[in-house]
């Protein structure tokens, strides 16, 4: 489609090298994020496989899941980048409804 809002400007050599290095550094951070997520998944799996008391393990693995999701949203899905205010608003609105559903179902549905 038309309506280009981007004006084509060529970067000079220095600007181009800088942008490339910045992206490459950014990619390294993504790999670190990935390593953390793998580690958290493994910890969650190991604590459950070790058969410890559910009373202690359940909150821990839920917390580990929440941390992973935050990493996924803010780094892999770039919510930490500029211009993501509306994205965050939409997602958190959805999550707010979601929590309401879960609390409602757990309190009013019984068998």
């Amino acid at each position: 489609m038309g309506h280009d809002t981007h004006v084509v400007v060529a970067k000079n050599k220095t600007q181009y090298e800088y942008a490339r290095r910045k992206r490459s550094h950014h990619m390294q951070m993504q790999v670190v994020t990935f390593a953390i997520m793998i580690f958290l998944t493994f910890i969650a799996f190991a604590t459950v496989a070790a058969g410890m008391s559910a009373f202690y393990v359940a909150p821990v693995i839920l917390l580990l899941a929440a941390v992973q999701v935050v990493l996924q949203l803010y780094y892999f899905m770039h919510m930490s980048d500029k211009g993501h205010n509306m994205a965050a608003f939409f997602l958190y609105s959805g999550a707010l409804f979601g929590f309401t559903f879960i609390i409602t179902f757990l309190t009013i549905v019984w068998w």
Partner: protein
Amino acid sequence: MAEEIKYTPQTWPEHPETANLEGKNKFLGFWLFLGGETVLFASLFATYLALKDKGPEGMTFTTQSLFSEGLPLVFLMTMLLLTSSLTSVYAMYHMKNFNFRGMQTWMAITVLLGLGFLALEIYEFYHYVHIGFYFSQSAFSSAFFTLVGTHGLHVVIGLGWIILLMLRNAKRGLSVYNAQKYYTASLYWHFIDVVWVFIFTVVYLMGVMG
């Protein structure tokens, strides 16, 4: 498709996915859609949590009896999907570097990992049905298959979407016209992984703990 500008790595915008109005709109609209998807999955999680282990008198299926044995397999599925999330990050890295072949290659790896996940999930479902835990067996089985199956359906749609994008754009090269399409598909793929993290934790890990 009115995109006539021939980009070079030097003129390629910093944010090609939002370089035109269509891209900006798509970005906003897609995040609204993801907000809706969050609500969809939350309602399925709520249903599952309310109905798990519930069924007809004398039902012997419990989350513990079903998921304990296969937990390493589900762990492997989680690893596959998490890794496919990273490979799609690599694809977007190459997209921003104006490297079309790099992007296509990493998208293809993402698809392969996704297919591996899907194969294991089909095997898992086949196993449950085989031992008598089929969709209409109990409130528990219906809630389980609806939640995990809806996620599986998202994986199928995501894979189909990425494969079609790769084929359709194979000879086009990279432009601000298709960069936004790849970017949106990769956001969708990450969201699928976000949902799976909760399924792995709430359904499988907490299921095994009982």
